[in-house]
């Protein structure tokens, strides 16, 4: 069946919203801005839902051609959209979670200057992300890929008057460019050897190749370079450093871009290119190792962070590591499953954290929170759902997806599994640490609130009472108050999704995705039954790890809150290293940034630009000036001096002629 679904509507609708708000939003009232932003992002969601409703009646993969973009010789790239099970799931996550976060942002950003700008950027982001997900070739995907980077840059630097936000946005953009460099070279290799960037054509030419044939080195190279791109976008070692700094952006941005959608683009890309990775086992091993190490590494850093958003940022990096671990053991559907559940619970956690920050008037330091459970019950309960989900307690969503990943990893190597389980324990520990520090005990921000420091944390204003649905007018300047309903509604929806999102079961999810990832990755039934018992064992161990994390967090941060300090003091240098993120930022600064700046200054700026390019121009201009100055005196205007010059010239000519004649 070749029905026309008008897939182009899905990305173009948010683009329209972005254009309207971006060009005219300055004159709109806030209500009008909200109306435009929600209308267009909601409409995209509606179109996706209608596509999903008709999905079973379509012939999959469904391609829709819009226009030819580039034609050069035999190479052709089109504006064409590609719909299959994988892109459908991504579409649902991006538009669904995106729409919820749009709603949330209405409440969160209401008091901010540049309100229209924020929503224009958000819609622009949706446009690029949907282009990325829907494209039918690598080139259009790359457009979306770069576009989300741009939107991310704009949104991280939303409070661009703040120095840290401006440099964080630059850092994110530049680090991403390093990854994009790898991605681009991979694309060049694909063009050179397969003559096309179209997914279907490329995968068709790749399919007959096998790891033993001559082209294997090429596929490994392409796979590794694609992984470089994915590591940049999805914040994996060694390019993860931008994501924690990206928390300078407004919290809805952290939720939408840096947790739920954009950072998963790398996972999506690897999953989309699975045909290549399947035939390049060494590249796949690299993916798995990078993912596993990132998961562990980021989780350990997350333990010692005190900024609530930074904890969540490292947790995001760690969870993305899980997804890459899954892709690396060729369990793509498990990775995508975790991508989906992670979008739910991490989006929820960020939004809830935003609600907490909102409640305490812009404070982000968990050491100044505590005892908020009574004050903000809705936030507390939704965040609890998110925390249990990420920690991997059944029956929350995170349990199903994480467990599937660990199980599949164990089949490849117990090392992956061991590190994964240990990371799960760490995840549970740092998340419950956050949970206990924020919501339990006594409020430690009282003296802080008196001193007024809402500004530096988030740039988020204190006073949101004007629209506060609960009308806490009696609260003072920094009084703790629950967020308005417009912020709580998305929290509740996401909390429900975090609870039930995994119930679909990884088996059914995998079956749904199997046409994309080829049936080969689906385990035969007999083998599955055989693994049934061991899966129960693995599940038990990972749930035990999560429970251990909960217990330890409870012990350290609820039962005996003075203990962590003693332990930290006892660990000394190790604790300092962890709390300074292993000095990776400093290492990169000394290893790459400083030499680059020094080299650029000395060689490129002083050496080439100033001493060669500028000097050539300056000196020739200066020389012309000097020569002209000496000749200027000939043009005195004095008639007799002109005559003298003529006579002298004539004399020279005559002398020359005489000399020639007498020679």
């Amino acid at each position, binding site marked *: 069946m070749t029905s026309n679904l008008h897939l182009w509507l899905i990305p173009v609708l948010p683009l329209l919203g972005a254009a309207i708000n971006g060009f005219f939003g300055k004159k709109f009232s806030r209500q009008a801005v909200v109306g435009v932003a929600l209308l267009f992002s909601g409409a995209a969601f509606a179109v996706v839902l209608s596509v999903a409703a008709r999905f079973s009646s379509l012939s999959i993969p469904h391609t829709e051609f819009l226009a030819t973009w580039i034609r050069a010789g035999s190479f052709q790239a089109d504006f064409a959209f590609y719909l299959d099970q994988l892109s459908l799931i991504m579409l649902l996550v991006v538009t669904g979670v995106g729409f919820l976060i749009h709603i949330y942002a209405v409440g969160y950003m209401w008091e901010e200057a540049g309100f229209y700008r924020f929503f224009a950027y958000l819609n622009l982001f949706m446009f690029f992300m949907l282009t990325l997900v829907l494209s039918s070739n690598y080139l259009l995907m790359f457009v979306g890929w770069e576009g989300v980077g741009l939107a991310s840059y704009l949104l991280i630097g939303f409070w661009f008057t703040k120095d840290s936000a401006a440099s964080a946005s630059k850092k994110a953009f530049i680090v991403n460019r390093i990854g994009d460099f790898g991605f681009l070279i991979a694309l060049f290799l694909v063009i050179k050897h397969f003559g096309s960037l179209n997914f279907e054509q490329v995968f068709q030419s790749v399919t007959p190749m096998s790891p033993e044939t001559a082209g294997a080195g090429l596929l490994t190279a392409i796979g590794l370079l694609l992984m470089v791109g994915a590591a940049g976008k999805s914040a994996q070692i060694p390019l993860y450093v931008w994501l924690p700094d990206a928390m300078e952006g407004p919290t809805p941005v952290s939720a939408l871009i840096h947790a739920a959608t954009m950072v998963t683009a790398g996972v999506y890309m690897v999953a989309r290119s699975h045909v290549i990775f399947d035939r390049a086992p060494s590249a796949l091993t690299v993916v798995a190792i990078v993912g596993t190490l990132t998961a562990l590494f980021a989780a350990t850093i997350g333990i010692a962070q005190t900024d609530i958003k930074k904890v969540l940022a490292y947790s995001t990096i760690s969870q993305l590591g899980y997804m890459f671990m899954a892709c690396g053991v060729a369990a793509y559907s498990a990775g995508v499953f975790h991508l989906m559940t992670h979008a739910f619970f991490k989006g929820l956690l960020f939004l809830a954290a935003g609600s907490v920050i909102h409640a305490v008037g812009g404070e982000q330091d968990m050491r100044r929170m505590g005892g908020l459970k009574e004050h903000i019950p809705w936030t507390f309960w939704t965040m609890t759902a998110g925390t249990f989900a990420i920690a991997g307690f059944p029956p929350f969503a995170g349990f199903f997806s994480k467990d599937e990943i660990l199980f599949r990893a164990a089949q490849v190597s117990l090392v992956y599994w061991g590190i994964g389980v240990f990371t799960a324990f760490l995840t549970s520990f740092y998340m419950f640490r956050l949970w206990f520090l924020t919501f339990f005990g006594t409020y430690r921000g009282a003296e802080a609130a008196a001193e007024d420091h809402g500004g530096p944390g988030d740039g988020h204003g204190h006073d949101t009472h004007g629209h506060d649905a609960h009308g806490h007018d009696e609260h003072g300047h920094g009084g703790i108050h629950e967020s308005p309903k417009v912020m709580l509604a998305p929290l509740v929806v996401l909390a429900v999704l975090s609870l039930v999102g995994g119930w679909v079961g990884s088996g059914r999810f995998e079956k749904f995705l199997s046409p994309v990832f080829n049936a080969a990755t689906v385990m035969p039934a007999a083998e599955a039954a055989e693994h049934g018992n061991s899966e129960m064992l693995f599940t038990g161990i990972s749930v035990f790890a999560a429970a251990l994390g909960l217990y330890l967090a409870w012990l350290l941060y609820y039962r005996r809150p003075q203990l962590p300090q003693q332990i930290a003091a006892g660990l000394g240098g190790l604790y300092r290293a962890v709390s300074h993120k292993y000095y990776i930022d400093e290492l990169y600064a000394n290893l790459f940034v400083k030499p680059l700046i020094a080299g650029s200054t000395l060689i490129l700026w002083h050496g080439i630009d100033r001493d060669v390019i500028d000097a050539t121009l300056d000196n020739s201009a200066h020389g012309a000036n000097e020569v002209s100055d000496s000749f200027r005196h000939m043009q*005195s*205007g*004095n*008639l*007799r001096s002109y*005559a*003298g010059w003529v*006579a002298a010239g004539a004399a020279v000519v005559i002398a020359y002629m005489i000399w020639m004649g007498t020679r």
Partner: protein
Amino acid sequence: MVPISYYLILSGILFACGATGFLIKRNIISIFISIELMLNGVNLSFVAFAAQWHALSGQVFVFFVMVVAAAEAAVGLAIIIAVYRTRETLNVDQVDLLKL
């Protein structure tokens, strides 16, 4: 018959007088006269060579020079009158700017 060297020496003297006058005189009229002197010095050598080689072209050329010199005198004098009217001087050392 007078040898051609006599004519040529006289022609050279005339031309040298003209050139010297052109270079050292300050009055525009004197300069103008010096130019005519140079032209005539050259004319003299033309006719001398024409007589020597029995070729008419030298004499014809002299007529052309005279005609052009007459035209030049008409234009030149007109310019001199215009200069005098605007600047009230005939001293070329004071006429060293095109701009008034």
